[in-house]
């Protein structure tokens, strides 16, 4: 349920990025890593509610997933980790342990405002 706090921060960040306080924000794009622990539909629900009566009212919240990677500690073979279910301990090529890289991204990439 921390999506409520995250939605609040997204809205505040988006409003602060708008060129002025009267221009309408149409779209907010965020990037969330595999391990960010964000449930997009829940996040959108809170975002829509919090954005009511602000200049971002009705804005579309676009959630762009960013994959973590599993990188072999021995041969450096790299494999995308799209979702948590595809985590594997051993490298597919040489069988040595994988290390996880990235996946904790959580940032506002851009906003779109009315022309």
């Amino acid at each position, binding site marked *: *349920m*921390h999506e409520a*706090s*995250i939605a609040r*921060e*997204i809205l*505040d*960040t*988006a409003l602060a*990025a*708008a*060129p002025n306080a009267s221009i309408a924000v149409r779209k907010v794009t*965020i990037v969330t890593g595999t*391990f*960010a*622990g964000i449930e997009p539909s829940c996040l959108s629900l809170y975002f829509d509610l919090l954005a009511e009566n602000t200049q971002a009212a009705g804005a579309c919240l676009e959630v762009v997933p960013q994959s973590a990677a599993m990188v072999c*500690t021995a041969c450096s073979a790299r494999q995308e980790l799209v979702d*948590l279910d595809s*985590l*594997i*301990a051993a490298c597919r090529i040489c069988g040595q*342990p*994988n*290390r*996880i890289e990235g*996946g*904790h991204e*959580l*940032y*506002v*990439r*851009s*906003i*779109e*405002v*009315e*022309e």
Partner: protein
Amino acid sequence: MKIEVGKAILHLNDQQSRDNLGKYRARRLVGINVLASPGAGKTSVILQLLDRLSADFSVGVIEGDVASSIDTETVRSRGYPAVQINTHGGCHLDARMVSDAVDQLEQAPGGYFFIENIGNLICPTQYHLGESLRVVIASVPEGDDKPAKYPGVFTTADCVVLNKSDLMGAVSFSLARFEGFLRTANPDTPLFVVSCTTGEGLDDLAAWLRENSPRPGQ
């Protein structure tokens, strides 16, 4: 019109976390963030560590709970300072809450304090609190598949504690399976198998914390 932003969603918490670290350092304190699901034994492990660290350092606890001050009273009854944070439904501690709580923590300079987070393996993960170390606790009765089901929090652990080892024979639990799942999420984090009932592993855990955190006062 598109405007590039490129700003961390939790940038305010991240900034507060950095401010917290400065505040802890000014008091020559080292913060340790303890994450686990409800009932894993966070308070019990913390109490064992307080007993092992208090001979050489000042110690204290910030207790995070949705409701009640049961844990704070337990810690205080053992003679250690503690401050309670109640989130009233909130699922994680944030850096601002901990900053305010540290101001109330009556702990002498030169030591360690533990931040017992809300029992939750998801929401607290992204919130840095100015800690120097992050300890993730799992326990035997929860099952050996915890790191597979909640890998995110285990990827951020500086060390992992498997508590209630004395129940290993009483419930179905494979240490090899647990460790296999843990290694998938985090190949090189140290794992301490402990029991607050028998005392197993707790001296090693306390020693590791001392060796792998910044020395209080430096």
